[in-house]
């Protein structure tokens, strides 16, 4: 990041460090390439298997961050001002030193994050994105018609709710802080974290209700 010597709009600078594969990531992609070429595997079938384990991949630290923000106003305030520091204060650091920004849902604003096309998606915080989320048509449609896209995923927002779409950049990734569900006053942080789904943290869903957990 040392190459950024002036203010810019995140698009026209040196892209050298946007993406990087570790040795193991590249090795697995190499196996996938050759096995696909030989007709031994089909990427769609692999995606389908991975999808069944989607919730078992990565630490999903974001759920704990959100739960803490719900119970601790001081932490919520820090999260709002400096999400990177707030997340790091819980001992969670992204593999690539992700710069995070937390966007808070309110009664009249809903936040939605797009962009998981490249390796910058902070899966260690949010969990693995769903397969459909990575599809280019989703990305463009989410920007043009977020209300329609959300409705398709079963999230119908009232016409009064403003929807803000955040397109993560190489420097900045987003975490949606959903609203705390009603009737959760008696729950501790651990139980609250169980209500925070991956979908809630990318904005394609809301936090679960207490009833949903039972």
């Amino acid at each position, binding site marked *: 990041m040392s190459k950024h010597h002036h203010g810019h709009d995140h698009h026209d600078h040196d*892209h*050298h460090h*946007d*993406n*990087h*594969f*570790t*040795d*193991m*990531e*590249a*090795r*697995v*992609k*190499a*196996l*996938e*390439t*050759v*096995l696909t070429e*030989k007709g*031994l*595997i*089909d990427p769609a*079938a*692999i995606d389908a*298997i*991975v999808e*069944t*384990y*989607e*919730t*078992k*991949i*990565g*630490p999903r630290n974001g759920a704990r961050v959100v739960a803490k923000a719900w119970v601790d106003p001081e932490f919520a305030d820090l999260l709002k001002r400096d999400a990177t520091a707030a997340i790091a204060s819980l001992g969670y650091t992204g593999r690539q030193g992700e710069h995070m920004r937390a966007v808070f849902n309110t009664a009249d604003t809903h936040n939605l994050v797009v*962009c998981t*096309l*490249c*390796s*910058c998606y902070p*899966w260690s915080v949010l969990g*693995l994105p769903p397969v459909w989320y*990575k599809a*280019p048509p989703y990305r463009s449609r989410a920007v043009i018609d977020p209300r329609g896209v959300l409705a398709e995923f079963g999230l119908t927002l009232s016409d009064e709710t403003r929807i803000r779409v955040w*397109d993560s*950049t*190489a420097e900045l990734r987003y975490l949606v802080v959903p609203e705390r569900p009603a009737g959760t006053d008696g729950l501790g942080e651990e139980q609250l974290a169980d209500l925070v789904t991956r979908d809630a943290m990318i904005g394609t869903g809301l936090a679960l209700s207490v009833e949903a957990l039972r």
Partner: protein
Amino acid sequence: MNTCKVASPLVASAELPKSPEGDPVFAEPWQASAFAMTVRLHEKGVFSWPEWAEALSAELYKPGRKADASDYFDCWVAALSRLVTELSIVSGGELEHLTERWQRAAEATPHGHPILIENDPLR
């Protein structure tokens, strides 16, 4: 929570990290891909369960493993790579070459674009 399970015998692989419910747990997405590919190859009969178990053990019980076992899936990928080269599906050299191509492709891909092997500037 997830009722759609892959009933593959590979879930019984030695030392596979598992959740209390018995599902495999992956620390990073590539680990899930490696697992899924192996499940698929086994389903297709490319190799048998004993062949897989032997290849995996050979890697797991090599000296120099990490004490915290965080290199479990490194061993998994090494075992899978060795099996496919031994079965002459691909040569070790070709696999290395492809690995390097993917690394260059990732570095050359700007933010917001899918990482494709075609993005390798050296091809």
